[in-house]
């Protein structure tokens, strides 16, 4: 493909203002094909806003987004998804009362023909099982309501759902938040397996720097609505990142005192 030298995603000067509140000031970011990026930042730095813009939930106030070399305007989740941008939200967007395969195929159900929209469960069940096995997720049964599963299993199901939908850019919002060490490791394994395959680019929003260094090619630090730091994981360290954030905090505290 001619466009292959282009990064998969390039965003330029993205800003987002909510009334009086500027969530994003000026964000520039490039994600290459098959790359895994970490997006770090404190609460309120604008991570979730950026994420919502990329998955079509919010529209930016200013700025341009290029996906696959073409400028795009993401005005709905469905449209972003059709392009191949899919998002695993912190709340996972899973329905506790529905079973695994109904959750995985929600809004892209396989149906028998006809106006009634009768669900064709057999292929959904089969594909859900295959897809989970493919990325190494072990769950007892795809017929169990998701509400009965552990946090790690739900996260894995949410990731599998996005991967199955042929996402080319996957946005993971705090994928290991509220999770034990074992479950977190399972999710990181899933991400590493996807990274090894290289079909999908991933942006991971995280608080936990350690996890980011385990699975990411590059880390970006978002502070006060701007990317203030962006480097390959091999060229930086957890210590360096921590220092930047802590210094920032000290400076702000000093200014507040003065």
């Amino acid at each position: 493909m001619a466009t292959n030298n282009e990064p998969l995603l390039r965003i330029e000067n993205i800003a987002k203002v909510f009334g009086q509140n500027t969530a994003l000031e000026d964000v520039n970011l490039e994600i290459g094909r098959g790359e895994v990026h970490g997006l770090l930042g404190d609460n309120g730095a604008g991570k979730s806003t950026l994420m919502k813009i990329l998955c079509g939930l919010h529209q930016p106030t200013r700025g341009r987004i290029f996906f696959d070399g073409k400028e795009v305007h993401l005005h709905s989740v469905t449209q972003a998804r059709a392009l191949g941008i899919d998002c695993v939200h912190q709340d996972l967007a899973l329905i506790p009362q529905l079973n695994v395969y109904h959750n995985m195929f929600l809004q892209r159900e396989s149906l028998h023909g006809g106006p009634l929209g009768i669900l064709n469960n057999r292929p959904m069940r089969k594909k859900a099982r295959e897809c989970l096995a493919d990325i190494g997720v072990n769950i007892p049964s795809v017929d169990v309501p998701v509400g009965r599963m552990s946090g790690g299993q739900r996260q894995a199901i949410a990731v599998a759902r996005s991967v199955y939908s042929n996402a080319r850019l996957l946005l993971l919002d705090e994928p290991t938040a509220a999770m034990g060490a074992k479950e977190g490791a399972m999710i990181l394994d899933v991400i590493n397996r996807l990274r090894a395959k290289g079909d999908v680019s991933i942006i991971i929003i995280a608080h936990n720097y350690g996890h980011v260094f385990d699975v990411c090619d590059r880390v970006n630090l978002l502070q006060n609505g701007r990317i203030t730091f962006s480097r390959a994981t091999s060229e930086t360290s957890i210590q360096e990142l921590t220092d930047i954030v802590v210094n920032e905090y000290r400076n702000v505290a000093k200014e507040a005192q003065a």
Partner: protein
Amino acid sequence: MHSPAEKSGPRAGDPARRQHVWRRAATSILARREASIVIAGILLVIYFQSTTGVFLSQGNISTLGQYASATAILAAGQVLVLVSGELDLSVGMVYAMAPFLMFLAHGAGLPTVVAIILALLGCAVVGLLNGLITELLRIHSFVTTMGMLFLLNGFTLTISGGYPVQPHTGDLVAAIFGGNALAQFGWAIAIALAFQFVLVRTRWGLHTIAVGGNLTGATEAGVKVKFVKIRNFTVCSMLAGFAGILDSFHIGSITPLAGGTQIMFMCIASAVIGGTLLAGGVGTIIGAFFGALVIGILKDGFTLAGVSAYTFDMILGAAILITMIVNVHIGRFKLFGGQ
């Protein structure tokens, strides 16, 4: 109420068998939601038959059908709305309005079937308004439909002048649409089965559960949540109107004070004791059908036994409280925490 299969599930040996047991356990939970109300119904029938001796007579069964059918049809629509996380208080007034719309259309010279269709379209408009106001103007459905309740009550009293009228009866159309008690009961069963199928086997039902189970999640997954809810409001109103039309043919009179809040609370009670949660995401239309039937059995049985209407209300109230407590605590335990 754990079945042995569910208890032994996690301990079962090979994975394939374990999977099978899990699936059976999952489906049997849904089945049990309806099972408890069915068992209650059977026990009540046995009790009333043994105490009154005439409960299972043909005459009484037809009376029972009359008690239960309209409520069951209203409850089917109400469950759809409840599962999608909303509530419709206006159904009883739609029930009273629909026969008048039909009567007016028929009076204008239209054939009965066309008049019925026009009346149902009128009800659809009401449901559409309920849905649009709730979803687009973001008014809580409790308030929207409470407003609609008063509005429609006044509207029905105005177009009727406050006087009852006689529906056109006696022909085949009238008999099919409720003139015959069994036909009315048949409609109730057919509607319950059809909408239970819609709820558990179609995309519409899946999205209804999704919207009520996790609204944010369903939105993020791309489900058209507003459309899903508006559609459920619309269908709920149409079913309420249809029940009103059936009853008007059956009773042979159209009164502006029919139904109202009484039948509205009865249909919500049927849904609740049948296993539907007001919180949304969980519900069964077959369960609501049996809920309506059990309420009918109670009412009918107590009437036969000569028990006062006051006692009936006390027992119904207690039944609602008990089933609700059981549903919330045991039901939630089964669905989320059950091992």
